[in-house]
């Protein structure tokens, strides 16, 4: 009775939420058979056999229709997947990440220094690969004084850093005048170019620097810039150091910037407080890290370098 008694149970329960399952149960009862795990039909009593006989033909037809539908569904599903499989295995989209560049041709870094003997500027054509090549690209870089239209062709030089990193700097030893405008222009062989106009600032007085120690701990000093610097571009401590190890000795330059520590007193005046021991400690750490624990160093000289920017200098950089 197990098959039918289950149907009876399901039949009598009802209830909305069970409806889908109940209908499934009713369907099996009406069909007069259930399928066990071995895929055999079985009957539970002679009465039920009679009931089955009365609906046998219809039931078998319904069963066949049901099986046919199942097979049809499966066939459609498998055919669909097989078609997709065949289609997609031969389908691979190409991936070209680069967008055509018609906006940026060069990047230019550096500064023009009216007090320097030689002007150096980094000029890099925008490239399609990660690293710069170890040759000088085809380009021409000129520096034109706008007032006189005098144009200087700058000489390129390949700079090779450690680990195979390359860069191209251009240079000239032509005199640069204060309060003049210059145009730096870089041109590719196809005529595409980038340019930048530089306005040289006024000449400013040599800043006064107090090397006087301020009382207290830690040791500290003041740099006093007493006017004429409209836009403070940089304040650097340049410390020349001789480093010695067991096997060799070398002279090296360590540069520390104090620009971001400067207090603007208005009127082109600034004060900068600096801590020499902190700089020496940093030099010692770098020396030890680079040259090993037996390295010693000796300070040869300490320079201060102060730069004033032109009108386009962004003080909030």
């Amino acid at each position, binding site marked *: 009775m197990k*098959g039918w008694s*289950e149907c009876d*149970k*399901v039949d009598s*329960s*009802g*209830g909305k*939420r*069970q*409806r*889908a*399952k109940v209908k*499934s*149960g009713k369907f099996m009862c009406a069909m007069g058979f*259930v*399928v*066990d*795990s071995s895929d055999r039909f079985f009957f539970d009593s002679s009465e039920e056999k009679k009931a089955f006989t009365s609906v046998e033909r219809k039931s078998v037809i319904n069963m066949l229709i049901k099986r046919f539908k199942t097979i049809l*569904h*499966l066939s459609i*599903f498998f055919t669909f*997947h097989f078609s*997709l*499989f065949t289609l*997609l*295995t031969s389908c*691979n*989209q*190409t*991936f070209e*990440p*680069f*967008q*055509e*560049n018609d906006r*940026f041709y060069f*990047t230019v*870094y*550096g*500064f023009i220094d009216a007090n320097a003997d030689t002007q150096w*500027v*980094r000029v*890099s054509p*925008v490239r399609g*690969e*990660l*690293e*710069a090549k170890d040759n000088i690209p085809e380009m021409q870089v000129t520096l034109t004084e706008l007032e006189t239209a005098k144009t200087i062709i700058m000489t390129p030089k390949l*700079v090779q*850093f*450690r680990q195979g990193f390359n*860069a191209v*700097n251009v240079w000239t030893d032509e005199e640069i005048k204060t309060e003049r405008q210059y145009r730096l222009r870089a041109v590719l062989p196809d005529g595409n170019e980038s340019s930048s106009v530089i306005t040289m600032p006024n000449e400013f007085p040599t800043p006064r620097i107090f090397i006087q120690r301020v009382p207290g701990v830690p040791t500290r000093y003041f740099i006093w810039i007493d006017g004429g610097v409209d836009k403070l*571009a*940089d304040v*650097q401590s340049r410390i020349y150091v001789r480093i010695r190890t067991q096997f060799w000795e070398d002279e090296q330059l360590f*540069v520390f*910037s104090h*620009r971001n520590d400067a207090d603007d007193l208005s009127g082109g005046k600034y004060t900068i407080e600096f801590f020499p021991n902190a700089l020496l400690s940093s030099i010692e750490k770098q020396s030890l890290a680079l040259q090993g624990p037996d390295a010693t160093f000796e300070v040869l000289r300490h320079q201060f370098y102060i730069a004033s920017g032109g009108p386009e200098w962004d003080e909030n*950089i």
Partner: protein
Amino acid sequence: MSLHAQQASIQGFITDHSNGNPLFGANVILTSADDETRRLGSAVESNGFYRIGNITPGTWFLQISFIGYSAHEDTLTFSPGESRSLSTSLSEDATMLDELVVARITGATRTIDGAQRITPAEIRRVPSPASGDLAAYIQTLPGVVTTGDRGGQVFIRGGSPSENMVLIDGALIYQPAHIVGFFSPIPGNLISGADFYAGGFSPKYTGRISSVMDVQLRHGNIYETSGSVSVSPFAGEVFAEGPIDRGTSSWIFSARNSFIDQTSKWYPIERQPLHFQSQFLKGSFIQNDTRCSGMILHTYDSGQMDFESEEEIRWRNFVVGTRCVALPADSGTLLTTNINLSRFSNSLGNVDPFGFNSSVMRFNLDMDIRQYAGEVRFEYGMYTRLKFLNYQLSEKFVGIDNASTSQYYAGGYVEATIPAANRFNIQPGVGLNYSGVFGVGIEPRLRLSWRPFRSENQEFSLSSGIYLQPVTGISDIRDVSSVFVAWMNSPLSDSQKRSIHTTAGWQQIFTNGLTWSVEAYYKEMSFLSIPVWNTLAEFTTDLALADGTVYGTDFRLELNRGLFYGLVSYGYNWTMYESAQDHFSIWFGEPVQSFHPPHDRRHQLNMLMSLELGKYTAGIRWQIGSGMPFTRPLGFDDVLDFRQRLPDVNRDRGTRRVIVDRPYKGRMPDIHRLDVSVERSFIISQSGSNINLQAGAINLYDQRNIFYYDVFTNRRIDQLTFAPYVTVKLEVK
């Protein structure tokens, strides 16, 4: 006296007699002794609870049934206003036929009260080496986007992973996935059921703005001890359960450990430097109307998203919690209390001197109460949370100090379910929260369902509400593979992250096993913190605020005919962020840019089929997703930094930079993949012990699917290639 006061009600828990676990989906039917056509019914919820109200005093026949189990029948007499508790367990009927059992476990997925109810049987259908894992299953749902087969990042309807809430027995788990994307810390054999809300969820869930996955874990078997061991090239798993005090208390244990890092050396796939492990232990105490449990979960993952990079991501979850569900005798009140602690930490690279780490620890105490007034159901509760957030982000997000902060958070909610005219369910609710950082937040929500034909087989649903999130998980969205998350209070705004959801859906169930549903959604998100658009080939960036708009449609078609199950799901999604940043002005002349974030997969189609073929079970899953956005490079150069000092072009090398187009204007190629598996069990002892063999393959036709494009190194990183596997599982009873 009102009519409602005279009506009676009955409630209780229905469990499996053999192990004490809830019989989710069982039917409780009352038939009037006076009029047999008069019936009242209810279905058992995922925690085993049921309730029938509005019972006219008198005599009723009770029947509790579940296919595959012997029914429980009784005759009950209700007096006016009586609130009766009746909990019972059903025994599995050993004489039941296999096909009926199959019919029980292969029921189509239903959406109830906006939640998609997920059963273990559904989870097991998805072919994967994890052999029935929530992580693999969730990827088949429309509206759910995963970025690849490693990292475990899940984006739901345009939301980011840190905006999803995943609860296990009421405790939050911050990173609910393992680093190998089809494994989660919650194996399928631990899951009793799960409620998944892709949006429009109840005010009961507060603290996240995108989605909720509320997972109920199984209790261990209170009568018998059993266990299993499984091994595959991807991972190994040990599982065991048994009684502590037979009939009243139990334990359950599971542990997983990955092997793929080792096996991939001799396995025919690229070496996979990925490792994960997890351990889980739960103890349960089960009485008629009370069940309390305590659990502890630990997970650890490590590995490289880019196999050629040495940068390693590591994360760890630790969750410990207790939960008590009680139905005080004849009170008609269901009480749920959770006390838990969740800790998550993750790090990227080496912390000192360059590297990033972040951790968050959350202590949570909450209580949910459910009561009835007539047919109106009231749910309300309160919670208190204390969070500790630590982050050390030197170099990654400039402008954020390394810090440790704490956040106290408390609140409550109330929601009513009001049936009307036997066709409507109206669910107004509101959540109220207070935090020391953000003050008071109010989250009004409304959900509504309409059954035009008075049948649950056709239902229209609607929801809308405001969702707030007090903590922010910052990820580097420039890199879609970025798994590292820094948890912090909203760093740029005095406001919590906020979203407004609106959803509208239709579900129709046919009696021949066919079900289809469609749901449209619209979301507005605000106060999102995202890294600024930046061109440097290093992770140094500030954060910016963004607003987001998302809309889309999820479609689902299921055919469930006895031994055959088929699912087609399609999700259309459109996500747009809008952000104002200084960089945009410099490069494009406009400070505000709109862009599709890198998880904006516009189209996604999933097909899943499982079939019982005699003693074999076959599963096929095919998925296709349209390409995701990426930022196209224009070229590369080297940048010299003027921010600290004037550079010296002859001494300073510079930093490589990528010059890029407007953000996320490119689209990566579409991805598609076919996964298959065949499974068979061999019984090896009379006690039912068996060996289960599963053979399958990931990416059967070896499609070259992109994982992401690294614009900083101009490299394409691909997903898993063709990977066959065999899983052997020994189950001992």
